[in-house]
């Protein structure tokens, strides 16, 4: 467990890197001290000032917001756009190009966003997602059987945490699971902060053509899964939009949950008291899942919004066209909103974390992610008794180099 925050006057931890030359603005703090905590510098910034100026890797300057109340306020404020084609990214990421935009509601504002979101919302309701539980349970059971058959040790990422959400989203969308090796590779390249630009663009183009071909095939012969259903339904979606929807749901639908499962498992294994609390009560799973979402905030660099007009925020003037970074990890650890924010407490009552965002873009797939996490965590710890790490915790390779945080591998063993 972490020590409490140092007082504002305490020196910055000596290990904190000099992120900028003197006279230059700082960049988004990235260096973590503890793999399960956000960079400590974020907490210092949050304590000192509600809004601060920062630079982006593209050379632009903009703003950083770290407090829970402010992050929620901006995410619900129509004067800020979700446009990710002109906005700057706080880490080296290659922006969406205009030809990639159709169907990507994530980067749209009303009324364009409203049109797409309304078309998809009925397929992601709480009741519909909860109705998938028996299928998710079967998928989890099959993967546990395979793990037991092969025996310990195992890497849970390829054997459990990645395949489960991948199979679920493939079935939901109507994407052949047999193609997973290809789309896992494209997805990994697109989310990488270190892959060469040409590789990232090639992966994104490959995924785009793959999805367009799939949409063509479904136009000829629509099935009952989501893409086929959207094609048969009475709407005016173009093929390019269907392709964009397919890409967004395929990537957002498996990478996020997969990383929550792996990072959540690591967290339970390094916090046995919390694992006991989670396993102790039959209805503890839902709260535990929410607390893991809050504590781990896998959207580790937060999200961005672009000011559509000049807006005054805490006495500073955010100018039209400037990018604002909303640090979801900092907001989720804000002591002004959460009691003992740096403590993992899986019994915490519902707490308005922002791990799924806030406002009109709040995660469309959140009810699916909840069902998957509840069933997968419960199944894993019931199904593999005595589960433990097969390497020291500090040797688990963390995804510092990826837009979505988590672990690259999770070597474990259990009692046979």
């Amino acid at each position: 467990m972490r020590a409490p925050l140092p007082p504002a006057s305490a020196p910055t931890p000596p290990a904190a890197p000099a992120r900028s030359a003197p006279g230059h603005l700082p960049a988004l703090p990235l260096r973590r001290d503890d793999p399960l905590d956000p960079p400590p510098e974020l907490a210092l910034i949050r304590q000192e000032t509600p809004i601060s100026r920062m630079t982006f890797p593209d050379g632009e300057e903009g703003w950083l917001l770290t407090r829970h109340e402010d992050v929620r306020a901006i995410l619900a404020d129509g004067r800020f756009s979700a446009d990710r084609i002109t906005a700057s990214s706080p880490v080296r990421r290659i922006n969406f190009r205009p030809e990639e935009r159709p169907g990507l509601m994530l980067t749209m504002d009303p009324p364009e966003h409203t049109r797409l979101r309304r078309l998809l919302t009925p397929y992601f309701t709480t009741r519909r997602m909860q109705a998938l539980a028996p299928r998710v349970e079967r998928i989890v059971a099959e993967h546990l059987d395979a793990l037991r058959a092969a025996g310990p040790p195992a890497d849970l990422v390829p054997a459990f945490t990645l395949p489960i959400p991948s199979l679920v989203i493939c079935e939901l969308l109507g994407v052949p699971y047999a193609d997973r090796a290809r789309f896992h590779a494209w997805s990994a390249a697109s989310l990488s902060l270190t892959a060469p630009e040409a590789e990232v663009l090639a992966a994104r183009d490959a995924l785009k053509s793959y999805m367009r071909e799939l949409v063509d095939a479904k136009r000829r012969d629509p099935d009952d899964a989501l893409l086929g259903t959207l094609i048969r339904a009475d709407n005016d979606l173009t093929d390019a939009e269907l392709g964009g929807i397919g890409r967004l749901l395929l990537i957002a639908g498996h990478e996020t949950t997969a990383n929550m499962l792996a990072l959540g498992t690591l967290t339970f294994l390094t916090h046995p008291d919390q694992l006991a609390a989670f396993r102790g009560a039959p209805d503890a799973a839902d709260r535990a899942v929410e607390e893991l979402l809050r504590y781990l905030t896998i959207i580790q660099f937060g999200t961005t919004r672009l000011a559509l007009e000049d807006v005054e925020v805490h006495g500073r003037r955010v100018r039209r066209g400037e990018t604002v970074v909303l640090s979801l990890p900092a907001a989720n650890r804000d002591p002004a909103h959460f009691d003992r924010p740096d403590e993992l407490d899986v019994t915490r009552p519902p707490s308005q974390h922002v791990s799924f965002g806030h406002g009109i873009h709040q995660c469309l797939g959140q009810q699916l992610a909840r069902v998957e996490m509840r069933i997968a965590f419960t199944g894993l710890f019931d199904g593999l008794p005595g589960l433990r790490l097969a390497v020291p915790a500090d040797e688990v390779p963390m995804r510092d180099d990826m837009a979505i945080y988590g672990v690259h591998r999770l070597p474990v063993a259990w009692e046979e």
Partner: protein
Amino acid sequence: MRVVADHDLCLGAGQCVLHAPEVFDQSDEDGTVVLLTETPPGEQVEKVRVAVRMCPNAVLSLEEEKEEDAPVVGSSSSSG
């Protein structure tokens, strides 16, 4: 206490159904919120407050009323 939903704002995130399933549902047609009752009974009030707080788009609000007796169950106000 009366629950009010501004349907035009609802984006179907489903937080309300998660936190107060006895009071909120989502329409099968368009995924937006359906009020199963506009005047939830006393034991539901706390859950409804949580749902109102959790809603990402300020769709839901509560109007406190003086004396609320028999709750009107089933006065569904689906938009879809």
